[in-house]
């Protein structure tokens, strides 16, 4: 059934279709509509779940851990500061190997306070042991939300997962979305079976115990192995999803890659703008390709190596910044090729922070610099696009 829904509703529908049983959530712009929609589903009797209206995001994720440890399917949603408030508990969810799924309305972090889109919130949680998916559209938000449960709950994996939908661009924007039938989702996900030790009075177990140096590293190595295995499981689930629902997903989605010399690497909603931009460049005969990263954790190293090894310039276009180095994706892509002989020149383009629009003009600037690099000219590794540099340099006393 085709419906017209906002991105936040995609996440709420994913929870409903996955028959999530406990949803602890705390409102935060731009993801507030997720708990509101859940409240509506429950009030209308369309969803049989406990909605726990916690008093903070820290408690939302803590309650999610409690419910998941007691053996039910759990979902929650947040963004930005809310995700940052969860930070310490995110490590505990993954360390306890609980398959919680969380929708994130990707939003900038303070200061200055800003409610609009970038990917800084999820990037800052890169090392918490959660799988990370980024949606390009509301359809992807829904599909990835559903698939995240299959992947997270797989007994080979047992890791929590975040599904990012861009603030406002997706969270608040109505798009046509194909809503799968409940029975098809039931068949795809299956009844919830916790493949982990739960809090069961019949079989008492101690969860979250104290790990000394002689045991701690083995727990961490287990998480490492699970995240590595997740690559294959994600591919399997994407494949099965395509067979059942007809929509294709890849951890790295390649387009216009044949004989491409400059490749733009994007995440989330900016991919749609970039696709049209690349299509037009191709029409002009320019050899430009596009890679969309749907999965950031686990990082699709092997796929990127294969796709980019013969390319001249890999231009990472990203909405996050690690001060003192560059964008997170750029750093990881550069490290991916560190030991390779055949590699592209890798450039970073910081764009769209705090909801600044990413337009064709933005991308023209990116390609202009990439073309210079292609010709062997000297260019910066990390490039800030669409920024009033002069004003900042003056304020910093450098001009």
């Amino acid at each position: 059934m085709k419906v017209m829904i906002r991105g936040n509703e995609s996440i709420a529908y994913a929870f409903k279709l996955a028959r999530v049983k406990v949803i602890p959530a705390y409102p935060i712009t731009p993801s507030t509509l997720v708990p509101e929609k859940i409240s509506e589903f429950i009030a209308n009797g369309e969803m049989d779940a406990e909605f726990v209206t916690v008093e903070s995001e820290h408690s939302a994720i803590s309650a999610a851990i409690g419910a998941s440890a007691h053996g039910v399917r759990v979902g929650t949603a947040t963004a930005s500061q809310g995700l940052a408030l969860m930070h310490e508990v995110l490590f505990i969810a993954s360390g306890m190997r609980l398959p919680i799924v969380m929708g994130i309305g990707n939003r900038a972090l303070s200061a200055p306070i800003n409610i609009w889109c970038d990917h800084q919130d999820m990037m800052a949680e890169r090392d918490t042991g959660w799988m990370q998916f980024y949606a390009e559209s509301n359809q992807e938000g829904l599909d990835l939300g559903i698939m995240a449960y299959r992947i997270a709950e797989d007994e080979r994996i047992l890791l929590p997962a975040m599904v990012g939908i861009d603030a406002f661009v997706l969270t608040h924007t109505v798009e046509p979305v194909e809503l799968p039938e409940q029975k098809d989702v039931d068949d795809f996900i299956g009844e919830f079976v916790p493949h982990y030790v739960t809090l069961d009075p019949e079989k008492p177990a101690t969860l979250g115990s104290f790990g000394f140096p002689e045991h701690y590293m083995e727990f961490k190595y287990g998480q490492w192995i699970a995240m590595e295995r997740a690559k294959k499981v994600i591919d399997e689930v994407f494949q099965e999803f395509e067979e059942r629902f007809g929509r294709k997903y890849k951890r790295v989605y390649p387009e216009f890659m044949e004989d491409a010399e400059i490749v733009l690497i994007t995440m989330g909603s900016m991919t749609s703008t970039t696709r049209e931009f690349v299509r037009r460049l191709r029409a002009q005969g320019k050899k430009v390709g596009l890679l969309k990263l749907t999965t950031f954790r686990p990082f699709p190293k092997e796929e990127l190596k294969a796709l980019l090894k013969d390319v001249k310039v890999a231009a990472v276009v990203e909405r996050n910044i690690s001060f003192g180095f560059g964008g997170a994706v750029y750093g990881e892509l550069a490290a991916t090729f560190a030991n390779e002989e055949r590699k592209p020149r890798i450039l970073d383009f910081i764009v769209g922070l705090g909801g600044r629009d990413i337009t064709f003009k933005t991308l023209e600037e990116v390609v202009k610099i990439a073309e210079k690099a292609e010709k062997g000219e000297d260019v910066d590794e990390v490039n800030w696009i669409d920024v009033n540099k002069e004003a900042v340099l003056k304020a910093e006393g450098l001009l």
Partner: protein
Amino acid sequence: MNYEKEEFFAPGHGMCAGCAAPIIVRWVLKLAGPNTIVVNATGCLEVATTAYPRTSWRVPWMHVAFENAAAAASGIEAAAKVKGEKLNIIAFGGDGGTADIGFQALSGMVERGHNVLYVLYDNEAYMNTGIQRSGATPWGAWTTTSKVGNANPIGKLEPKKPMARIIAAHNAKYVATANPAFFQDFKKKVQKALSYEGPKFLHVISSCTTGWRHDPSKTIEIMKLATDTGLFPLWEVIDGDLENMRITYKPKKFKPIEEYLKPQGRFRHLLKNPEYVKKIQEQIDAWWAKYGHHYHK
């Protein structure tokens, strides 16, 4: 079912000799029985009873972090509701995890009405990290962050946070103060708390031999003095009705506060100045003058 002869908290844990917390936990579990899930805030109790791969817990037990035992318990309770289960969900937290860093999560849990028994074992300082003052540390106590010296002869300068009153003011289903040295009263309150649906809160005094600096063999004696001097009164409140608070024990003859202060190293400096002792005594007398009529034999 009567499980008093069974043990759900196994011996061999690493809690200090003379620590009151294991006494409290052991008896709460005996009274609750095996159909129980425990959530534990970070603290001595959690650290010293679950050194992987060993455990002292013969009921399902979970630790998440320091400030979120009440939130984790809320989630467990929500899941139990979905499953249609009837069981005891009990959270244990020290005074740090309850009165300070975990205060918000506890307030939320009680306000939302989760069917959880929250047990505060109050040893009146952050003992797990080495005796730092908490919101529940009493006025005049020495701790490693409320040190006593020439410029501050008192120690902690602020009064103790009244946790049981605060939680009662949330209109919790059942709130009581309890003292394992008054065992029958303690037992009755645990049983009573477990018999109610909704949020229940027990504020249990829990001596720490290293932090209070007393002989490990004196634990029960000192805790008994806390109540017999009138300093830690035993009372209960149902449905937040503080007007009708019921004092459950009144000493026939109140002991002077010096008797409680003297055997504890954390208060030794106060005894040098009779004014300090008098100040505490006056506060106790004032409390009983104000609330003493809530005792009905």
